[in-house]
């Protein structure tokens, strides 16, 4: 599971894992980057069902992006109103229109990205992608259905996400409803070679 000895020279040894993917060794004081995954792992990663951490981090990134854009738009609207009318508008969560606009915006955000490419900005960053359960592209129907079913996983006290941790194919409730799955789509092999190249070029005079 580990890379050849030469490749790992001077770097912390990855800790072997029982279920396939090695954990990085702690960096300690060396501040050296660890090699991202081993050769076998990188060759097999693409197309595997994505795990909870990757999906959760992607979701957090999407929250930051979507809420950030929404706040910017609200701020811009408030600024425009103050310039045009002379009186400023203070948005608050008590304002029904703000709440409705927020949910509409979130729906549009996820629906657009999932139907268009299967990847939200957060998913692009983490290298994961929504696909049909059979591996086909999501498409408009499944993308919209997934977006509509997404809140259900939250409304059931988060139990809808348990399938990602416990299920064999790591599917949440909204995945099951929309007949979709989330898979890794980044080229881990290329990333590993880039890492080795960086290490090699930093050593050469």
């Amino acid at each position, binding site marked *: 599971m580990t890379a050849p000895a*030469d*490749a790992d020279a001077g770097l912390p040894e990855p800790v072997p894992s029982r279920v396939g993917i090695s954990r990085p060794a702690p960096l300690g004081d060396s501040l050296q980057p660890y090699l*991202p995954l081993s050769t076998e792992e990188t060759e097999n990663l693409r197309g595997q069902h994505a795990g909870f951490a990757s999906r959760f981090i992607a979701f957090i990134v999407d929250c930051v992006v979507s809420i950030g854009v929404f706040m910017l738009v609200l701020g811009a609207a408030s600024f425009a109103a103050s310039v045009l009318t002379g009186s400023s508008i203070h948005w608050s969560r008590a304002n029904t229109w703000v709440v409705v606009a927020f949910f509409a915006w979130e729906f549009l955000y996820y629906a657009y990205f999932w139907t268009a490419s299967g990847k939200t900005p957060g998913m692009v960053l983490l290298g994961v992608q929504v696909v049909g359960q059979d*591996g086909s592209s999501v498409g408009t129907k499944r993308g919209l259905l997934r977006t509509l079913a997404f809140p259900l996983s939250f409304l059931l006290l988060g139990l809808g996400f348990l399938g990602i941790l*416990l299920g064999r194919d790591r599917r949440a409730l909204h995945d099951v409803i929309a007949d979709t799955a989330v898979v890794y789509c980044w080229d881990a092999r*290329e990333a590993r070679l*880039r890492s080795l*190249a960086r290490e090699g070029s930093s050593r050469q005079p």
Partner: protein
Amino acid sequence: MIDLVVESLDLNALIAQIDLNAVLARVDLNEVVDRMDLNEVVAHIDLDEVVARVDMNKLLARVDINQIVSRIDVETLVKNTDLGAIMVSSSSTLATEAVDQGRSHAVSMDDTLARWVSRIRRNHTGRAEPPELPNTPEEP
């Protein structure tokens, strides 16, 4: 006189009776080769003509390129040659490096979580077969 004897002999029948393998077994071929001036032998060979006679397509068709490539240690090659530097300068930025590491950490966390869950459930069954991906370009 000798000519008459030679003419009366059936040399082909004589040679047929000789066990050439036994004769060759007694010859020290290494010594024979050592005595040869191979440079002079090679100098007499028209290599261009030899190569011209070779059907390169047929020759290459018999070579398993995949097997040759699989024997190359690409990782060592990238690490220890200018190829690595070229790759870094052409494709790698600080942002790419950060993204690569972030994704790798996330995958490692996925694995850690999966291991914990497996231990808690005492269930060591493997994951489901992954779906076949659509023909979309890979993420860089």
